[in-house]
């Protein structure tokens, strides 16, 4: 009975986790930040409150906004949620994980970005265009880099389908590989860029000259904005758990052993918490880069990732 519904259960659990996890992680990061800067924090649930507030607010649409502008939030949210249904967070045994392997996953994120970018251009404002242009620059360097780093992992684990990768990595005994080290390094850099954190971008700014991701969203309001914000929070969460799944998967429940789940939950919470700490350290430690330094930053990430794959082919 449970057995046959187990896949559905685990999948829905996963989806719920992602939906809630995103805002929570962001809240956690903000809390930490406040503490480090010696401010009183708004609490763990603040992001969630923001989103719900936005949902009830009225939506204002620019006059010449087309259907692209209106549909973009839905596409973004849908795509991100799908990614959420694929990346193993607590259990490697996701029925939907086979829907899209890691390459497909990357391009699902790309799909979301594609529409955000179009939305930025749609209203024909100066800032929208600027945001789009910059975002596309970042992405056009970040995407290949992320692909390369995951390639390295998938070469090691002889698979590109996430659940099998996790399974493989958890089951075989651990050996330190230079290629993986490179890949991990690259991945961290890219994750920062992809999720629009300092030093690449600053999610909490609306200062015209520095913003990238926000610039595209300037015209959004109400539920559209809510969807996008929520999606970006989920994205942070997902990248974090993707990193976990690829580079430190220990603790994730393997193929059909539900008994493992509680431990897995605890493990993931701890890991995410640590990642949050890491993010905060980085963000308080560093300042935002000039826009064209970002290119070099990402170029380095790309280089590292390629080095990882090279070293796999040459050394291992």
């Amino acid at each position, binding site marked *: 009975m449970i057995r046959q519904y187990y896949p559905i259960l685990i999948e829905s659990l996963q989806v719920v986790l992602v939906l809630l996890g995103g805002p929570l992680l962001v809240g956690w990061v903000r809390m930490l930040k406040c503490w480090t800067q010696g401010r009183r924090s708004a609490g763990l649930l603040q992001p969630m409150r923001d989103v719900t507030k936005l949902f*009830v607010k*009225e*939506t*204002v*649409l620019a*006059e*010449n*906004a*087309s*259907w692209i502008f209106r*549909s973009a939030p*839905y*596409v973004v*949210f*849908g795509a991100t949620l799908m990614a959420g*249904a694929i990346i193993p967070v607590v259990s490697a045994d996701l029925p*939907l994980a*086979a*829907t*899209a*392997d890691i*390459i*497909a996953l990357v*391009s*699902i994120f*790309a*799909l979301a*970005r*594609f529409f955000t*970018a*179009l939305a*930025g*251009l*749609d209203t*024909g*404002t*100066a800032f*929208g*265009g600027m945001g789009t*242009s910059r975002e*596309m*620059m970042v*992405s*056009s360097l970040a*995407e*290949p880099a992320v*692909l390369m780093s995951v*390639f390295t992992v998938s070469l090691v684990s*002889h*698979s*590109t*389908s996430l659940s099998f990768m996790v399974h493989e990595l958890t089951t075989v005994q651990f050996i330190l590989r230079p290629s993986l080290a490179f890949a991990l390094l690259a991945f961290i850099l890219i994750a920062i860029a992809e999720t629009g954190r300092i030093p690449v971008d600053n999610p909490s700014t609306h200062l015209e000259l520095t913003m990238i991701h926000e610039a595209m969203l300037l015209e959004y309001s109400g*539920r559209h904005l809510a*969807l996008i914000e929520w999606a970006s929070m989920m994205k942070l969460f997902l990248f974090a758990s993707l990193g976990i799944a690829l580079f430190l998967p220990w603790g994730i429940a393997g193929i059909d052993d539900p008994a493992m789940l509680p431990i897995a939950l605890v493990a993931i919470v701890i890991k995410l918490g640590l990642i949050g700490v890491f993010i905060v350290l980085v963000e308080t430690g560093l300042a935002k880069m000039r826009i*064209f330094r970002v*290119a070099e930053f990402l*170029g380095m990430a790309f280089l590292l990732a*390629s080095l990882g*794959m090279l070293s796999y082919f*040459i050394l291992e």
Partner: protein
Amino acid sequence: MPSPFELVSASIIVFLCISLVSAILANHQQFLVKLSNALSAAACLLAAFGGFLTVLSGSVETFILPIGLPDMPFYMRLDALSGFFISIVGLLGFFVSVYSIGYLKGFLGRRSVAPLLVFYNIFLAGMLLVLLSDDAYFFMISWELMAVSSFFLVFFEDEKVPNRRAAFIYVLIAHVGAVLILLSFGIMAGFAAGFESFHGYTFSAMRMAEMPAVWASIAFILAFAGFAAKAGIIPLHVWLPEAHPAAPSNVSALMSGVMLKTAVYGIIRVGFDMMGTPQWWWGGLVLALGLVSAVLGILYALMQSDIKRLLAYSSVENIGIIFIAVGLAMVFAYMKLGTLAALAMAAALYHMLNHAVFKGLLFMGAGAVLHATHERSMEALGGLIHKMKWTAPLFLAGCLSASALPPFNGFVSEWLIFQSFLLTPALPGRLLNLLIPLGAAALALTVALAARGFVKVFGITFLGQWRGRHDTHVAEVDWPMRAGMIMAALSCLLLGIFPNHVIGWLDAVPMSLVGGGIGETAKASGWLWLTPVAAERASYSAPLVFVWLVLVIGVLYFIFRARGVSIRRAPAWDCGFEKMTNRMQYTATSMSMPTRRIFGFAFSIREAVTVVSRRGSSLFPEKYLYRLKVRDHIWNFAYKPVSEASFWIARRVGKLQHGRIQIYLLYSFITLVVLLVFS
């Protein structure tokens, strides 16, 4: 039930008849446009169907046409490979022909469309003949028929000097390429039967021929160079970004969508079929050039502000991607890895099919924009999404496929190529081993850049506000044009959603060439899941992705509908900026500025800012003029020197014709003496 071969040949005959009729009925334009395009559409369907059946059954049909030299009739052969390409030609030809019914109306009254119709049909016939021909002579004839007819199509609007220039460069490179191919055939024929008779010219004889490795390589290199020139591989691509914009859009759709593929067909035919097993470094060569073309192609594309030029460069990129896959297939075939070779080959074929469809769609869309606005430069376009309610979404579908985003078709084939990269085992030769990861990296970069490029195309052309000085009256195009684009867009989606069926269908081709297939393993875990080799290695389910997206979006949308919170329209906020004008938008040039900064080394960029100031005082400038000229290096590095050199030689040679009769007599005298001495 006629055999596939009969279907295809019937369509060829129809094409030739149409071109004849069009020549005769030259002064019933109105009627002619409808009739001839409708007929060609029908003929295309015939051909496509024939090709489809051939691939489906994996059958081989041969036929000998008793003309040509009496000792050397025209041999024809319809096998899975040619069948596949024929079905591509037929499919896109069908869409485009339907589209043309509307598109050519734009020319009526301005100029006679008779030449266009004549050469358009010869062009289609020529491509089919190339795919059918089975001996060197007939192949060359069909090849040049294709080339020359398209050459006349390129400068259909012949008053424009740039068009003529484009056509000239095109035909020159095409002809040189053709001669190279001819030379390679010469080698093969020589080893097949010597030159005591004409029987060495048939492909079957060449297949039999035993060639020493050196000569085989020379022959392959020659053929490859020739075909690469046609395919527009960098550095032989220069004709492509000139010719495609110059040609009428329906023609550029065909040229870019299918003509380039015939070159790939040639390489596969020679490399896999006629040469037997390829040598490993051939694969390496093809792979390397493919990579270069892919990356540089898309980079150059990003710099363009002319829609059709941009699309043309993106064709260079896609051909590069196809070559990457073909190169991998060659390497695997050399290593006798049947399945992997089949995977790479299938990826290549699939991507050709996809590229044909979406690039055709995009060019048709560009044509629609051109037709509606008479404007090709994106700098003067914008906001068309409000005026062209049909074209915009269709074009968007094309862009999504071209930038390899799920669930559209472009993604599937590129995914397969990535898979074949990741499945590569250790290879012979350190160079290749380096090439594989670099290749993967380059491909990844290409895909990302492509997405960037197509955001630019769609965003600048269709979104925002009209950038032109005065807002011209723009109307949506008529139904035939829409129909053509709709069909293309639908097939983009379907090819993306049901990859298993497609792969299962085209599996006959790799089966016949590399003796392996992935048709079975691909749908091992049901039609829903695409698993190229095994579910453990990789899996992708396009239908689910599609359904999921539709579901989520639909659900959310209806939730909000149900809550019925009103949406208020207001002027764009833009951080409180006031008096927004359409000149404040980002333009195509400014969009691509970051890329220009990052990848500047790849171009020759000339920027100039001139300050126009009132009354000479530079303190209060009236306006700034910004001029930008971005060209690819290849022209200056490779072509200019050659042409200058040949003119230099020409001048030297001209001095021979000195004008003084005594000198001429002296030539004869010296010749005589020299000959007498040296014999």
